[in-house]
């Protein structure tokens, strides 16, 4: 019975971690202030 409880805790923790991380997601960032280029850049 104790082993079953331990396994359930493990499963619940894994789901909680993954659901939280995916719910937060990566940041979307912001639009770059740099322009669309009309000159040839010298380097990347």
């Amino acid at each position: 019975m104790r082993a079953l409880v331990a396994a359930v805790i493990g499963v619940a923790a894994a789901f909680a971690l993954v659901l939280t991380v995916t719910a937060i997601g990566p940041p979307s960032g912001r639009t770059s202030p740099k322009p669309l280029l009309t000159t040839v850049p010298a380097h990347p």
Partner: protein
Amino acid sequence: MCRRASLILLAFAVFFAVLAPLLRWYAFPRLAKVPAGRYQTVVLEAKDATLIDYSTLEPRKVSRITMTETLKGNVERAREVKDETGRDVVVWDTLTFVAGPDGAMVSKIPERYVFDAHSQQPVHAGGEHVDGTPVQRDGIEFKWPFLVRKRDYQYFDMQTRTSAPIHYRGTRRFHGLDVYYFEQTVPWTRVPVPQALPLGLTPESIRQLGLERWYTTKRMFWVDPTTGAPVNGEEVHQEEMRWTGHPEKKPITAFAGHVKMRPDYVDSTVALVTSQRRLVLLMTSWLPWGFLGLGGALFALALVLEARSRRARAQTADMSHDGGKTGLPPPAGVGR
């Protein structure tokens, strides 16, 4: 003590064993996406190319034509589209600026490309265009989906404004990476004249001269299969100005050249893709397999501790059953 430790280890073993598939098949498809605010430039060159001189309407050889492509993620518009459609999208405003050997403009074509941030499939949310003409893409452009497969893809051609298959032609080694090579040939097709041309020319003035623009290209991409990002691109590109209604008149070559990525941009693209590739591999392979192995090891350790704990308990039980006999011979003189 052993029993408690084995239960804790069992919980961790299950945690890691469950985390492995969840990370690969639940978290990765939701977390892996093209950043909405990406800004990137690529410079391509065609050396010893042929270019039309619009003042004489004659083709001439030039030492170099340069194409500067800028991609700029429009985060505000991406948020608006997400609010409207509920989909996580990327909106790329791009500009392809073609310059002659003196740096003067040959043409410039703006585009707006809206696509799903996870699958890279086009999203029709309004505002998509090529050179101001509304378009509806049904193929990818610029980037392949994550975890590219060895198959043909529909690829959007900005000149013809249509999509056609781009064929997988095998795996190649490129700058230390195993990449998939794709090839597409666009046959001679009549295409719109760019809105911005040298000498103040317009599509209307070209039409009044009795000319129309035709184009063919062989497009080649070397694509990193993990990230779906091309690490190299080339085009054998030809354009002609043909006389409308006069097939007997000789067409004017407007552009002919082999366009290749400038080597410094190849190096920077390979470096960028290599770093991004590690992140994708971390989520699709390294962490899931690592967690699975760790889960297995912890489970084995939990079993060992549990077995020890049971052995210790059995011994304790045996001692209580035989009245505390130790199994040692009795001291001399005792029980005689």
